[in-house]
């Protein structure tokens, strides 16, 4: 019962956070994760992986100056998008040190700040990241549907009396 309540609370928080983030328009998962990494002062390296059956479908390895994201490339484009967003969500939440210590206890935390693999959602951090990724993807697809060009009169009416503009950034 308590777990269900915690899950609902976690989901609510993730939904709110997804609504407040600045997303690129049109949405692009690569541009988004790049901007998240750059916001933390690091460059990003995206490494597609194919044919590796015993590895997580996404893996984030962050050092002081670079974020390495390994993602399964032998899956559908939508799934790849979700995997990248999941790793971006780890960066947004700042899931630091604890995961690195669990996965690679022999490495110095100064060398590797974060190592997180997308394997399942039973771990709280993985669940949290997957929730945020899912809500970001949902928001992006909703905004794509709503992005039908409006005339100036329509957009002004909608802005004045309708839904407030969510934060967004055009390239």
């Amino acid at each position, binding site marked *: 019962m308590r777990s269900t309540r915690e899950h609902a609370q976690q989901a609510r928080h993730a939904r709110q956070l997804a609504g407040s983030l600045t997303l690129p328009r049109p949405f692009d998962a690569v541009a988004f994760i790049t901007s998240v990494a750059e916001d933390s002062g690091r460059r990003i390296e995206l490494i597609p992986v194919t*044919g590796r059956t015993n590895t997580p479908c996404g893996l984030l390895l962050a050092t002081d100056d670079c974020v390495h994201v390994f993602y399964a490339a032998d899956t559908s484009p939508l799934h790849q998008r979700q995997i990248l967003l999941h790793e971006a969500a780890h960066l947004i939440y700042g899931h630091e040190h604890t995961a690195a210590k669990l996965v690679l206890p022999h490495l110095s935390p100064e060398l590797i700040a974060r190592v997180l693999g997308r394997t399942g959602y039973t771990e709280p951090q993985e669940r949290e990241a997957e929730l945020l990724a899912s809500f970001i993807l949902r928001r992006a697809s909703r905004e794509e549907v709503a992005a039908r060009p409006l005339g100036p009169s329509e957009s002004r009416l909608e802005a004045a009396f309708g839904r407030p503009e969510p934060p967004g950034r055009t390239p």
Partner: protein
Amino acid sequence: MIDSAVYFTALLALLLGVHKLWTVRTGDANPQTRHQVLFALCISGHFALAAPATIDFTQRLGESYAGLLSMFDDELRTAAIHFFAMLALALLPEGEDRQRAERRQRRIAAATMTAAAILFLAADVHGAGTALVVHGLGVPALATYDALLAGYAAWCLGTTGLGIARYARRVEPGMLRFGAGLLVAAAVVGVVWAVWNLHEVQSVLHLRRGEGDADTADAVIGSLSVVLGLSGAALLIGYGPARDPGRWLRSYRQYRALEHLWSVLRTAVPGIVLDAGGRRHVPGLPLDAEFMLQRRVIEIYDGRLALRPYFDPRVPDWTAEHEGDAAVVEAAVIAAAIEAAKAGRRVGEENAAPSAALTDLHSADDEVAWLIQVAEAFGSSPVVAQVRDLVRAESAV
């Protein structure tokens, strides 16, 4: 009956205001949203105070309290009209002209509300039953007060209605235009209501008493105006998602079409399922069908990737006759992998076979359509059933 209608209007406005606050709870509200919230809360407060049952209750508190509450109610109504006008001013192009118009609107509203409060207090109004009674110099003061508020409301709603109508005419027929039309109708009815309120001036001058909010016609016309306005605003708020009303139904049908494949994968790989906050569900009916469909698609792909160690390299040979039907081959690969996983028979890392069909998917709709084909083949193709039986028989040996 009147009480129920007025309280219902107040509740409707309150819900709209709370909904607006909820949508901006995580960030700074823009001026439009602030005006929407303030309009809704002011109009809600006005109707709650104007309901006959509330007036009866305030009479019991004392004559002077009843008078003050009546004034407070009028001020709330005037503030609501001001915020409605501010919303419509956002239709003007951004720039100096719009800022000037907004400044003027704010100044006129502040002056009107201040003058109204001074006139009302100077009139020394007392409650008498449901009416307001004045004597001596209080008569012209209260008459001026009523004329000022009615005049302000008529001017403000009239110019606002004209402003919205100007834009509504340019909008293509559809839900947005209908919503804007309701806002114009609300403004027109609001002007009628303001003009109707001028009879209060006559009543004060001739009878030295005003009906206050106890006038039934005033309550009905006012409620109609607000219900029209709230309905129009509700349509505009819901306009984005409502652009494609068939989308929910389509998503729900697709979600159901993937049920069998997803549930078999979930049994084989329980870790793929994410609890995304169960309160969004009515049992068996996802409220956000598109989100649930999106999750189902992701979970199916997660399951497929998790089964890669069990992908059998012989499946393409077994399904060679159906090489042209990529969905059947894909379904057979998954079915064989599920049987191998059940038997704990890993085939090996080098045998992971990416499906060529996945590279041809260019949109989320393509992905759903592809998975539905796979799901149909998974559930009904005799070829898939044969492959499944073959792997099952091997595993049993």
